[in-house]
């Protein structure tokens, strides 16, 4: 695989992952726990979009926007029903994290119950790839990259132009919620959940569009999303984007790489071209995650 | 006993400790005062190994200890308490005391399983010592209460007891009397002074109350904005204009 193709695949993957990583990093930063249900919210939204698109016949773009809106409220509702109660009794972040794992299991299986385990697809016309510099890219992938970019610009504006964004940045800079907030902190948390879930839905739907949609998808993408988040430095939305880009590049590079020279040790052995077996594809991001955690747990962009 | 040379610690652009040098001599009680945010607790955190320093050197009993992890420093005989007392929630007061005992048998799975008679014997000895200390700290009645359920002042007392269990050569106390009732406070200070006399231990104490400091300290250092601004006997410090100014502007 040539470099142009690697770059294109990287951009597509990064666009998808960063939208998911932004939400995860916000929750981590403000409520101080790793939300293991985050990608399941995203998949729930993607399934809503599927319903709006396939069953109600809505335009796919509108379907996703609507689904993001609905899921944003689901995020708030789950917080009110579960996490807010735990905050009230002063539960430790670890308890919130374990509870989010329970939430993830319940939500994932509820989706499986409602929509069955079968894979689903959106109503997208068959994609005819274009050639750019010898690399192939489908119009859908171009759309994913554009939507990803637009969402990030929107997020940047939100960070700098709204009181919510300013409060968010203040928290990210150092202090805890109570100190940083000119506005009511519970209100702030609600907005944060809405935004985190809605952005996740856009990212999740894009992954579902490009690959497949099924209720367990959330579990299959949780590790890459965590990896991108940690790589970028928790609590830093720009870091989340950069982390997604770095992870996507590393993944695609490793997939494309010929590992034979590594094994041959400069002529010691003579093995033909070796590539990572496709069975280990999911393990790539796991390994990157573990390596990142071991050597740079603070991420690329350190918090101030 | 403890020598600190040109210690530096930065948090981003903030200089939390700026070229601090000081000395705690053998069997003396030294105080450390300064307005809020002047770097007192930061100094303790760096000396005890919880923060990495950005420059300077720390020597304990002639040995360089900066860069060592906190547990190694504690093992060398330099122990500390925390400003916000740490009290394991689901461990009783007695368990807390036993936890601290030095060089216990049965602290690894092997000896815990195969040397039980000897472990029990050493537990018994530690238990006696713990009960005695709890008696002195007036915590005996609470010995089987969870440490997490104690009041702030009681937690302070417990953390003192724990440190005494360790029998260190030098103790860093971070506001040991905050939240402790006044009568007990006097007794506590008395206990510290006695320990220093009998067992020749050194103390380095962060305190807010000037009264406490001038009662027991041989020497006092003053920090402000991460810099050492004064040192001397309690009387000298009380008359130092720079110190008064720092406190007045801080208040």
């Amino acid at each position: 695989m040539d470099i142009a193709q690697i770059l294109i695949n990287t951009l597509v993957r990064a666009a998808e992952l960063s939208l998911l990583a932004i939400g995860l990093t916000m929750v981590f930063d403000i409520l101080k726990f790793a939300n293991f249900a985050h990608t399941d919210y995203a998949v729930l939204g993607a399934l809503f979009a599927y319903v709006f698109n396939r069953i109600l016949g809505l335009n796919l773009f509108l379907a996703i926007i609507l689904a993001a809106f609905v899921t944003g409220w689901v995020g708030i509702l789950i917080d009110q029903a579960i996490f807010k109660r735990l905050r009230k009794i002063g539960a430790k972040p670890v308890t919130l994290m374990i509870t989010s794992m329970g939430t993830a299991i319940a939500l994932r299986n509820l989706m499986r119950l409602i929509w069955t385990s079968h894979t689903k697809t959106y109503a997208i016309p068959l994609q005819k790839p274009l050639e750019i510099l010898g690399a192939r890219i489908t119009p859908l992938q171009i759309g994913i990259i554009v939507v990803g970019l637009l969402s990030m610009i929107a997020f940047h504006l939100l960070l700098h132009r709204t009181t919510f964004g300013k409060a968010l940045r203040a928290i990210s800079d150092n202090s805890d919620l109570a100190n940083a907030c000119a506005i009511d902190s519970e209100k702030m948390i609600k907005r944060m959940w809405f935004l985190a879930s809605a952005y996740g839905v856009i990212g999740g739907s894009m992954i579902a569009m490009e690959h497949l949609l099924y209720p367990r998808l959330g579990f299959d993408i949780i590790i890459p999303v965590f990896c991108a988040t940690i790589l970028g430095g928790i609590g830093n939305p720009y870091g989340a984007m950069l982390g997604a880009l770095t992870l996507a590049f590393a993944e695609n590079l490793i997939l494309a790489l010929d590992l034979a020279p590594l094994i041959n040790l400069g002529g010691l052995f003579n093995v033909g071209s070796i590539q990572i077996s496709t069975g280990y594809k999911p393990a790539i991001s796991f390994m990157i995650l573990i390596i990142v955690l071991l050597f740079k747990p603070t991420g690329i962009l350190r918090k101030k | 006993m403890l020598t600190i040379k040109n210690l530096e610690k930065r948090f981003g652009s903030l200089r939390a400790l700026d070229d601090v040098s000081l000395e705690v001599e053998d069997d003396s009680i030294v105080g450390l005062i300064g307005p809020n945010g002047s770097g007192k607790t930061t100094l303790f955190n760096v000396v005890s190994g919880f923060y990495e320093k950005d420059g300077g050197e720390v020597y304990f009993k002639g040995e360089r200890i900066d860069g060592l992890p906190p547990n190694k420093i504690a093992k060398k005989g330099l122990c500390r308490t925390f400003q916000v007392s740490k009290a394991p929630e689901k461990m009783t007061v007695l368990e807390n005391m036993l936890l601290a005992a030095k060089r216990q048998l049965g602290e690894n799975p092997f000896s815990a399983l195969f040397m039980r008679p000897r472990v029990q014997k050493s537990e018994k000895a530690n238990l006696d010592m713990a009960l005695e200390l709890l008696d002195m700290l007036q915590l005996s009645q609470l010995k089987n209460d969870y440490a997490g359920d104690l009041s702030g002042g009681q937690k302070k007392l417990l953390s003192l007891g724990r440190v005494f269990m360790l029998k260190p050569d030098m103790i860093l106390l971070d506001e040991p009397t905050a939240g402790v009732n006044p009568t007990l406070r006097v007794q506590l200070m008395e206990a510290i002074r006695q320990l220093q006399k009998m067992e020749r231990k050194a103390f380095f104490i962060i305190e807010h109350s000037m009264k406490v400091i001038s009662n027991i300290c041989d020497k006092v250092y003053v920090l402000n904005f991460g810099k050492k601004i004064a040192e001397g006997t309690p009387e000298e410090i009380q008359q130092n204009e720079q110190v008064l100014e720092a406190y007045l502007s801080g208040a």
Partner: protein
Amino acid sequence: MPIINFIIYLLTMIGIYSLLAMSLNFQVGFTGLINFGQVAFFCIGAYTSSLLVVNAGVPVVVAFLVAMALSGIFGYIMSIPTKSLKSDYWAIATLASGEIVRLVALNEAWLTAGPFGVMGIPQILKDLIPKDAYPVFYLLFVIACIIMVYIFLSMLTNSPFGRNLKAIRDEEELCLSLGKDTQKLKLQAMIVAGTVGGLAGSLFAFYIQFISPENFKPIETFLMWAMIIVGGRGNFKGAIIGAVVIQLFNVSTRFLGNYVPLGSDSMAALRMTIIGVLIILFLLFRPEGLIKEKKKVYD
């Protein structure tokens, strides 16, 4: 009598999962190590013991011991990153490491037969026990293991070692300030937990006589978590009670499936939804679980 056989099967599975729950409880309830990859110990134990016996003809006793040792070593490896990682980061890493172990079992077909799994695992002491009595014999064997592990773990948690672990769970910095090498303690705790998990894996393999990567999906870890959350952390009785409750629910609903108009996939989904909700409800309304951690009282 199929009903008796079913009950014996159920009890045996409860027993095996009790061991896994006790091992997880040792990590979570006593040391505060949030391990979301507990199934890895189960998987390594099961594969090591069965492959040693089936492919290499090693005596079963030796195979069990090697399996426990290997799981223990894996526990050691898992504990290494706790040095530099906060507990939530470590939890994320354990989730990944559990999946990596399963992927190795799935992909290294030369060793593990990949998705086909290991078949023909022999029964222990098959020639000495009458065929009809075998299930009861194995159940007794599992119970004996539980009793041994229970005593072994209780001795550890009641020792100064166990006290140190509890202090790490509640206040790690305090533990450091008292001169405890918390990293070494966590490492020892993970080795102990891994060994117990490996024993459970071996018992499982030689009971079921056929294992495949399907047996070691992340869902198993979540079941074990449900057990310690429902049963209660910080005591081993809770882990056993939790295993009883969750396995009773898990296994018996499989048979109820015959009377409910739902496909097997939907039934499984419903089961796990309920378990997820149960986890949430317990954490919200009864965080200490069915059995509370016992206070250690001196007189």
